[in-house]
């Protein structure tokens, strides 16, 4: 038997999300969840199984297939004393909710001179390689990271999935949280006790000295895999997960790049005008005189995500791509 101090359980990423939501719903009766197939069905990814049995259909609310409508209903409920979690099944569908997220939720607090608050969580997904083609595979975190008033969280492990979700639910304003749909069955340590992860604090997933790899969400695993490959050829990579793109922990990124003198940024969103562009410019502006090479960006290929596996796999950043980029930066090619 483990002692209490060392009893770190393993949960899947999906279980961690569910536990966060359940704990917050027990803690605060204002929290409810609304979306498509969330009650009896327990969500198509099965992340919400069991919640309706505990909380009932008054708090786990199945909607028609009307993303703009129930997103807007969430905004109105949030403005009037409730704390909704709006479930947007696929990240691609946030395009349908844009007016409610961007013109309403993000701006109400500011436009009202600080009088109205919108404590709402938009829960959605990112990630390709599920063979779901162009309308169910995008990673659109850049879209919402662009908008003042929204916070954006990108959990990369079960630990982050729980901690960031709890922080999102407790936030006084709108938060968009993108879960990596390819990670739902991946296990990792998740403390049983209550914990939250502050927004705007990056996590150094692996310390290193030769090259900084900043990676978000699904790309953290890719970066760590590349770091292992790099270690084998004598390159020490530091892997940093910003965990939230808004707010962004610029200092940790810049300090790491100053230390290693080389930086790669990896994100599964489209490379063009994407998260990688923003993070790379933060590093370039903040660490320019310490850099030995231009900051390298690696995002998803700028094409609609194709269906055929042989094509789809080409569009997503891989360990090999990150490895090669790091090797080139460190002139070990």
């Amino acid at each position, binding site marked *: 038997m483990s002692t209490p101090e060392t009893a770190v359980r393993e949960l899947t990423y999906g279980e961690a999300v569910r536990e966060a939501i359940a704990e917050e719903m027990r803690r605060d009766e204002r929290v409810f969840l609304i979306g498509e197939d969330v009650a009896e069905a327990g969500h198509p990814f099965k992340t919400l199984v069991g919640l309706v049995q505990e909380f009932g259909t008054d708090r786990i609310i199945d909607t028609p297939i009307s993303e703009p409508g129930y997103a807007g209903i969430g905004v109105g*409920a949030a403005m009037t004393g409730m704390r909704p979690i709006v479930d947007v099944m696929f990240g691609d569908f946030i395009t349908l909710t844009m007016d409610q997220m961007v013109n309403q939720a993000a701006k109400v607090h500011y436009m009202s*001179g600080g009088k109205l608050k919108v404590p709402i969580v938009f829960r959605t997904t990112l990630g390709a390689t599920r063979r779901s083609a162009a309308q169910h595979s995008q990673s659109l975190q850049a879209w919402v990271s662009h908008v003042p008033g929204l916070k954006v969280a990108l959990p990369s492990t079960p630990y982050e999935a729980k901690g960031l979700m709890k922080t999102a639910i407790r936030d006084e304003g709108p938060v968009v949280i993108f879960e990596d749909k390819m990670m739902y069955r991946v296990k990792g340590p998740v403390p049983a006790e209550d914990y939250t992860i502050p927004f705007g604090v990056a996590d150094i997933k692996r310390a290193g000295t030769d090259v900084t790899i900043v990676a978000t969400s699904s790309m953290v695993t890719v970066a760590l895999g590349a770091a292992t490959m790099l270690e084998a050829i004598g390159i020490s990579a530091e892997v940093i997960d910003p965990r939230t793109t808004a707010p962004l922990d610029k200092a940790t990124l810049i300090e790491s790049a100053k230390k290693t003198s080389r930086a790669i940024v990896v994100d599964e969103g489209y490379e063009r005008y994407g998260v990688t562009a923003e993070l790379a410019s933060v590093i370039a502006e903040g660490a320019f005189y310490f850099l030995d090479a231009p900051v390298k960006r690696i995002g998803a290929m700028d094409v609609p995500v194709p269906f055929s596996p042989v094509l789809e796999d080409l569009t997503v950043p891989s360990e090999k791509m990150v490895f090669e980029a790091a090797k080139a930066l460190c002139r070990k090619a």
Partner: protein
Amino acid sequence: MTTTHAIEPRMELEQHLHMYRQMAKIRAFEEQVNELYKSAKMPGLAHLYVGQEGVAVGVCEALRRDDFITSTHRGHGHCLAKGATVNRMFAELLGKEPGYCRGKGGSMHIADPETGNLGANAIVGGSAGIATGAALSAKMRGSGQVAVCFFGDGALGQGLLYETMNMASLWTLPVIYVCENNLYGEYTPCGDTVAGDILARPRAFGVHAESVDGQDVQAVHATMRRLVERARRGEGPAFLECKTYRYYGHHVGDVNREYRTREEEREWMTTHDPLLTLAGRLTAQKLADAGVFERIVSDVKAEIDTGVQFALAAPYPELSEVDEDVYA
């Protein structure tokens, strides 16, 4: 309601005179806004509510202070009718610190949670979700509050309205969709944009729907009271089409109004004016005389004059406030 008529005629007259005062206040406010625009004292534009006063006043007089409303780009009338003060309204329109949004919202975004006003919205139809969500929240909290969503005929083209009406009906939410049909969506007659029968749309979702003469504040008020009581009893959402007319153009800068005739405008202003209609009726019933209405108009004028002077003299926000309240 017939009981109320029989027992409390005096109280009823007071309420009708109060409604006249509220309509007169909105009209005087908007005429002053137009002057501020023409004299280049107001930044940006404003969409005037003149002509539609009977709708906002008839609806809001049927609500409790803690009932919710969501408003539109043509929203000054809704805000005032729900209880906003002219001083802080003018201050907001001028982008001044004491404004309802500390100058950050302006004409199209005035919000006043203290009077249940969840904000005007510059996205046509954009507040249908907010109002319906407020109704869901009221139901979940068991607060007995009702939410009213104001929108114009232009918003009938927005899908959000139908998605939310569907859910409001499914979940029996205490929300009333008030469609102010003023015949024009911006510069286009609604006949060019609205197919079929308007009331058939909410009815398709099982939403109780009625139409009323929006220029008759007593009719709007009586109808609304019924719909509000119905919603508060848990009998679900309703849709009220108020047939009305905006006397000015789409906004203060729309002065030529090529899309409609002066004859049409004159007809509405003379035979369908909400203030003339109410004053004429109360006078004919010998419940009030011309002197009563003159005194109200003169009181209101003084309130407006004081309010605009307050706003003109008020300070602008500190520049350091520009990035405050982005995040709660």
